[in-house]
């Protein structure tokens, strides 16, 4: 057993661009899945069954089937109708997947805000929508911070799955280098370390954000 990390160093720029793409995807998906999840949750809690039932069904479907299967479905399913780049499919697929998980949490926290909060806001003269916007949703959001943080940490790791449909993130970007250098072990070790560091940053951010919002619960 002899390890040789020199090919990894030689392909450092490729890996770095892969890290860039991974980070960018993670950022876009984070925004998309959190804001989308919040919107979906509000709609599903405050509308009648005709609207909320299909939403609940989709959330459930996204949560009980594997991400990779969903990605394949989107990739080949959408590919039948329109030509869209893998990157777009990846962002949408990962985005919808985590939007469902986030919406599931937001639905629970919106419901956990006490009726007294709604009444207090209404008694000041705020209407229904303003009460949701100023009082209920912000409180639900703050209460969701720990669990949403967990979801985002899982999501960053799941960006690696996008390589299966050819999105040029970190894992995919290294594949050419691996195939010409025959050094899969070294490359994957370095890739794992990169994810570990990303994960550390995420956990640090989550802890900080949780501390920041602790008083407001």
């Amino acid at each position, binding site marked *: 057993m002899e390890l040789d990390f020199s090919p990894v160093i030689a392909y450092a720029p490729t890996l770095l661009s892969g890290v860039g793409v991974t980070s960018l995807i993670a950022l876009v998906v984070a925004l998309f899945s959190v804001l989308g999840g919040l919107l979906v949750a509000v709609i599903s809690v405050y509308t009648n069954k005709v609207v909320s039932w299909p939403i609940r069904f989709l959330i459930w479907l996204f949560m009980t089937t594997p991400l990779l299967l969903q990605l394949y479905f989107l990739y080949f399913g959408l590919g039948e109708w329109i030509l869209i780049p893998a990157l777009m499919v990846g962002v949408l697929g990962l985005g919808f997947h985590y939007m469902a998980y986030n919406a599931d949490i937001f639905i629970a926290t919106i419901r956990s805000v006490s009726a*007294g909060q709604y009444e*207090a806001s209404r008694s000041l003269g705020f209407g229904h929508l303003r009460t949701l916007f100023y009082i209920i949703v*912000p409180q639900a959001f703050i209460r969701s911070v720990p669990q949403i943080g967990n979801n985002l940490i899982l999501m960053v790791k799941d960006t690696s799955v996008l390589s299966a449909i050819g999105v040029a993130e970190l894992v995919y970007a290294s594949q050419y280098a691996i195939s010409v250098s025959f050094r899969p072990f070294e490359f994957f070790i370095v890739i794992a370390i990169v994810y570990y560091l990303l994960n550390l940053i995420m956990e640090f951010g989550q802890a900080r954000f949780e501390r920041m919002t602790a008083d407001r*619960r």
Partner: protein
Amino acid sequence: MTIETKTDTPMVEIVNVHKKFGDLEVLKGINLTVPKGKIVSIIGSSGSGKSTLLRSVNHLEVIDDGVIRLDGVQVNRPDMKGLAFERHINHIRQNMGMVFQHFNLFPHLSTLDNVTLAPRKLKGMARKEAEELGREYLNRVGLADKADVYPSRLSGGQKQRVAIARALAMQPKVMLFDEATSALDPELVEEVNLVMRDLAKEHMTMLIVTHEMAFARDVSDWAMFMEGGVVVEEGTPDKFFSNPDHERTRNFLRKHLSSQH
């Protein structure tokens, strides 16, 4: 039903109000007039309908029959529907301050923001002006130094004082207190009572649902005893608390006065 100072303009009028929860009739034709600047206390055991009555004034409970007016304007409007009624009731509520048993401060907002949110968003007040006003009201309830603190850091008594400041900041025509001190530890009751006494001195119109007999006797212009959804007895506090006409009132008062120190 009518208070001695008959000539005063009525601020709150409650006329023949009925309310049912399912089959249970909780308000069976209540009448009450609160003149401007007067303080009315409503007492009674839990389930007597007193809280429901107070909440009906704020339209947090929708009454089935009767009329409630605030400063001559009808609060409940069975003839109005949808958005038109929303606009109407939101406008009415801006003129009423409501204080809840469990405070219901907004935990995600600082103390100052709790007080300034409604003036800013509903009256379109500029942030700077609203904050000046907010600090003034916090000062009035003795919590000027807590402006930037979040509610989770406050004691129950402090929370309730902020809740009062929040309601006052809308400069309401009447304040409604729904058992404002019932959820407080005994040693914290007095600080809230003090704030309410100050308001009384300034001739704020108040409708108070309370368990504090001594406080009600001191502060009110009129006292009312409810049981089973009807008004059993009402009168001036002097007469009401020392020499009530009804046996049921006497029983209730005996129980509650003796349990207080």
